[in-house]
């Protein structure tokens, strides 16, 4: 009994040490908000097209029945990182043949139209979410956010923040491979 008691400080030290080690992990982001949507069906929403842009609107029904998993990006013209991310998304569409949908979050249609005219429009469909209500349905906390949705309408992956830079793009491409949108050779 005494021997077991003598070991308790060591045991406590190991437990706490393990916890600290976990906390020191640079990969861990304490600000990360876990998403409830992963592996869940995409939420119900239906958005009008952006006025002045020649791209159809976006609804829940557009996310199902696609041949491959699709990427849905939440963006806005007022969002500075979205500008940087735009090039990455465009390359996904042009190089990897990804179907890209967009939700134009809390944006004025004329601003969005100007933004797309300037940078190019890689989106197959864009829903205009001026009230931000669809954003709440998707549980987003800011822009940009990017989702991968399976052919059956299941949310497979969520990336919070801009997919910009080697690490982020690598992570996102890995998720695309996992979901089956691109093959591993394209990585």
């Amino acid at each position, binding site marked *: 009994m005494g021997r077991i*008691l003598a070991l308790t400080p060591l045991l406590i030290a190991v437990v706490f040490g393990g916890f600290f080690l976990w906390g020191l992990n640079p990969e861990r982001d304490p600000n990360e*908000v876990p998403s*409830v949507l992963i592996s869940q069906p995409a939420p119900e929403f239906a958005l009008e097209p952006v006025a002045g842009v020649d791209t159809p609107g976006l609804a829940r029904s557009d996310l199902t029945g696609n041949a491959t998993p699709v990427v849905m990006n939440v963006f806005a013209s007022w969002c500075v990182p979205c500008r940087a991310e735009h090039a990455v998304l465009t390359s996904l569409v042009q190089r990897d043949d990804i179907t890209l949908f967009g939700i134009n979050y809390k944006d004025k249609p004329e601003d969005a139209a100007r933004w797309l005219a300037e940078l190019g429009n890689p989106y197959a469909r864009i829903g205009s979410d001026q009230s931000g209500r669809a954003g709440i349905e998707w549980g987003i*906390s800011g822009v940009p956010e990017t989702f991968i949705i399976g052919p059956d309408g299941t949310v497979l992956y969520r990336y919070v923040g801009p997919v910009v830079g080697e690490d982020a793009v690598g992570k996102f491409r890995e998720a695309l491979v996992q979901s089956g949108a691109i093959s591993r050779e394209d990585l």
Partner: protein
Amino acid sequence: MLRYFSLILALSLPLAALAVEPDEMLDDSALESRAREISKELRCVVCLNQDIDSSNAGVARDLRLLVRERLVSGDSDKEVVAFIQARYGDYVLLKPPLNEKTYVLWFAPLGMVAVAIGIVAVAMRKRRKKSVPKVLSDAEEREIKQFIDQHKSGETT
């Protein structure tokens, strides 16, 4: 007098500077106070450690409006919270719910107290055992007597 009054006014101004804007508020004061109570329990997903009632973030405002909209359409307080929880997860609740995932969180303190009580109890029992006075055996008594006698005779010489 006026100086004191303006001082009090100036000090109380920050209290009035709340995030809830007049255009968000409901005309029905009963519903509005329910909305305020619900808002205080919901986490702002942008600022993380602030409730949506006191946050100026855009999403917080949207959520406040949503809470009020649900209340007006006849939801109970619980239904409103459940609606938002379904979209943002348990994380949106400032008070963590009791479920399988949070058992450790809720019961670990109790467990730690139990372990501490156990350790103290064992240690105390040990100490008490040690302090029990022992009666010397006859042989020991004789030995001590002999030692003292020897010592005494040594002293005198």
